[in-house]
Every structure is written in C-alpha cells, then in structure tokens.
C-alpha cells in the first residue's frame, strides 16, 4: 500500500464523507464557542473555514477530530472510521525535536504498532510528495520554518487519511513562503485528491485554495454563509491575477464584513 491517489469528482457528484448536524459547543461559564453548525463534507472537497478570531474555527476542528465532544448536535462519518483516517496539521509544525524527520513522519504508524521497515515506503513517498526526501535524517532544528511545516504535512498525509484538518498552518510563515506552500498544497491535492478542511484568517488564501468557503462569525461562533469557488484545479499563479479571482475575493470579503458587522 502506498499513498493513494484518489480521483476527485466534480462538485455535486462527490460522495458524503462527514456530516456535522447542528453541532454546538458551550464551555463552562456559558462561553458559546460554536452554535448550530451544519456542514456536509464530501470526498475531494477543499473547504476553508474563514472568520475573525474567536469564531470557533479551531473548536470545529477539535470537535471533528474527537478531541472534545459537542454539547449539541452530532458529527457523523459515512462508513467505518478508524484512527489514521484523519491527518492534522497545526499552526506550529508540532514536530518531536528529539526525532529525525523520518521518525516524525513515521509516528502515526508507530502508534499503530507498525515497525519503521514495514512502512518505510510510505514514509519516503509522503516526504517525496512534500519535496523533503533528502532530509530523512535531519533533525527539525536543522530545517527552516517552511520545511518544518512540510514535514508536518507529510506526517498528516502518510496514513493516507480520508480527511486532513489544517488549523492556520501557514499563518506563522512569511508571505513568500506562504504563497509557495499554497501552490504546493494545491499541486499535492491535484496529485492525491485528498479531502481538506483548512482554517484561515486570510480571504485571499481561502479563495486561492478552496472550492468551498465557509464564512463564520464570532460571539457566538456560527456559520454565516457558504460560498463556492468553481475554478478547476490545479490553480496556479495566473489564477491569482485573474478577474475571477478578484471577484471571488470581493464576494468573500463582503461576506466576511457582514460576519464582522453582525458580531459588532
């Protein structure tokens, strides 16, 4: 088995992967982090959660990854759901500093009790997909911020998950690196056809990357509007300067302002 290359069907024909049904989360002290969030995630979707700070984006991801339980509503996976079906990328690379790049990428398998040799090919392929196959034996401290993020992405990919969650993965990087990683991420998506939920603060990033944008508002955290970007993948730098791109950014930005205005 190696990293699977799935075919992404056109929107509307994609099978359902995960459904959030009126999901809410209230923390002790009546902090409503999220209220009535309904979202259908289909196989092959690239969904962005876009919204101001505190609108419950991270909370939504934590609920999906089962790190906490919703106080209202349900989250349903279609079909069986096992560990390894989910890949996660945090804002920080979150690598184990005492382990080499290869050992870090091996981690998800290691926790399934698989020896390095038995999954060496997958580890190598995941690292190849992010362009780091030459850095197997490096330690994280020897890598730049962007390279560490790539390792983190490779680790999320390596189990060939049904869904990849990314929580502002590129927010801490400089703009040049971020653009590069955005391009590379789309190339990766075109290659392996993964399903992604991507949290971001940036209108431009969300438009460039996703085919669905979920705009959220804060206090209480909730979904305001959903937009689609019907631009086929792969998208490249030309898309960044196109009229469609500008129009999508304008529409998304308006929706976001409405979200902020609602909250204020």
């Amino acid at each position, binding site marked *: 088995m190696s990293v699977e290359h799935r075919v992404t069907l056109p929107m509307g024909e994609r099978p359902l992967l995960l459904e959030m049904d009126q999901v809410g989360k209230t923390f002790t002290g009546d902090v409503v982090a999220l209220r009535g969030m309904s979202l259908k995630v289909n196989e092959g979707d690239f969904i962005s959660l876009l919204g101001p700070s505190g609108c419950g984006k991270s909370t939504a991801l*934590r609920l999906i*990854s*089962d*790190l906490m339980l919703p106080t209202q509503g349900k989250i349903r996976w279609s079909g069986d759901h096992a*560990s*390894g079906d*989910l890949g*996660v990328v*945090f804002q*920080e690379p*979150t690598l*184990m*500093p*005492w*382990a080499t790049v290869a050992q870090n990428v091996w*981690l*998800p398998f*290691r*926790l*399934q009790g698989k020896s390095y040799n038995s999954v060496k090919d997958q580890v190598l392929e995941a690292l190849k*997909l*992010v*362009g*780091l196959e030459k850095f197997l034996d490096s*330690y*994280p*401290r020897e890598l730049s911020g962007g*390279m560490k993020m*790539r390792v983190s992405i490779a680790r999320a990919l390596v189990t060939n998950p049904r869904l990849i969650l990314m929580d502002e993965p590129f927010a801490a990087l400089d703009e040049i690196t971020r653009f590069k990683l955005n391009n*590379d991420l789309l*190339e*990766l998506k075109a290659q392996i056809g993964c399903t992604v939920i991507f949290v971001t603060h940036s209108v431009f990033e969300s438009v460039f990357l996703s085919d669905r944008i979920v705009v959220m508002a804060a206090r209480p955290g909730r979904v305001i509007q959903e937009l689609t970007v019907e631009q086929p993948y792969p998208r490249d730098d030309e898309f960044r300067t196109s009229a469609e791109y500008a129009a999508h950014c304008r529409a998304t930005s308006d929706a976001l302002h409405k979200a902020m205005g609602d909250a204020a």
Partner: protein
Amino acid sequence: MSLTETAATEPMIVDAEEARRARKKKIEGIARWVLPVVVMALTIFGWDRFVVWNEIPHYIMPGPGLVAKTLVQDWPILFDSLLVTLQITLLALLVAVLGGVGLAVLFTQSRWIEMSFYPYAVILQVTPVVSIAPLIFIYVDSRIAGLLICAWIVAFFPVLANTTLGLNSADHNLRDLFRIYGATRWQRLRYLQLPSALPYFLGGLRIAGGLSLIGAVVAEYVAGTGGIGSGLAFRILEAGYRLNIPRMFAALFLIAATGVVIFACLSFLSHMLLRKWHESALKRET
C-alpha cells in the same frame, strides 16, 4: 514540490572586521581553559608562600607540597576510603534515579497517587538529613545500608521534582496528536513524555550527583565509628583527632575532586544525550 537549498559554503573570512572577530573567538576558546589553570596555580603558589613566610606549623596549616606528599604516602588508606565513599555515592545516586524517575512516572499516571505521596516526598526533602541520620543508624543494622539511605534521601528529590515537571511539560499539540492517533497510555509515556522529560531529568541528575556525595559524607560524620568500610569523611574525623592536619587536607582534596569528577561526568552525559536536538546543548554558529 521542489525545494531550493542554500548551499552550505565554508565560512570564508571576507574582511578585517570578520577576521578580528574570528581571532577574538579563538582567543576566548583558549582563555576558557588557560585562565582557570593560571588562577589555580597562583592560588597554590600563594598558599605555599603564605605558609612558608609566616612559618605556620604544619599541624595548623600544611603547605601544598606537604599535602601532596601526604596524599602519596597515605594513598593506600585514602584510596580505600575513597572507594567506600564513591561506592555509597554512586549507589545512592543510582537508587535516587530509579526511585525518583519511578515515582515521577507513577505520579503522572495517577493524580491520586501523586496527591497521596507528594507531601511525603517534600517532607523528606525539607528535613535536614543530619537530624534524621542518627535515627536511621539506630534502626538499620548495616552501616553501609544506613549511609545509603541517608545519601538517597538527600539526592532523590531533585530527580523526582525535575522529572515530574518534565513529564508534564510535553507539547500540548503533540499530546492532541497522540490522542488523535489513538496512542495508548504506555505509548504516550514512551514516545512523548519520557523524551520531553529527558532534559529536565538530566538537570536534576546533575544536582543529585553533588547531593548524593554530600549525603554520603554527612551521613558518615553522623555514623562516626570507623573500622572496615570507612569513607573519606571518617578519615577526616580521625585525622582531626590525631591532629594529622595534612591528611585532613588530603582527604578533603579527594572529596572535592570526586565532586568535580561526578559533575563533569554527568555534564558530559547530558551533553551527549541532548546535543542533537535540545536548545541547551546546541552550538549556534554566529
């Protein structure tokens, strides 16, 4: 995805400024070794002159030459004592490490255990060993065992406290990641918490190394009686009764040297274990 790498070029000296900086760094590197040696030599020389010029009798304060001579002359006795002290120190350190790490792991596995036993650990730590030692020697028949217990009491707390802190300081996102991948308690301990705790543990270990020597010496002062199995502390006491001050100095020198060697060994161990990844052991190129 492709990646542009900056070629790792040899550091080249381009201008006078940089050359000066390189020279300064080199001089600093040499000074780090030479200065302490020079200071040491001057101190010994000053000590020698002080004793000779003031005609201080050797039963008050021997000169460095006499101490060195005594060290050689009394070597058979002193060496045996050194072995005893060293044996107790190292055994105590070993037990402190096993006990400290073991307890720390137990504490992080169960809050109930931690709540029940942590106060006792603190009480053991804050009670001066000199005041418990006499009791221990009443209840424990074996002299060696008594010494060992005293040294252990002094040494184990830093290991326990530091390791507990380290086990609890694993990165939160990594913890989440382990949960997402369904890691067992054992896997989390083995692959996440123990490596995270290593730098903290090694810091505690360096303190514990010095403390176990102190514990061994202090306990021996309290234990008093000599005979077989007498360590350096007993030699100092004995030499004091006989006004054999040079031997006192020689034994004192051995204790200090032992402490330094233990510290150096533990620092080296720490460096070797952490040099690949931990901030404290990294040499940054400037």
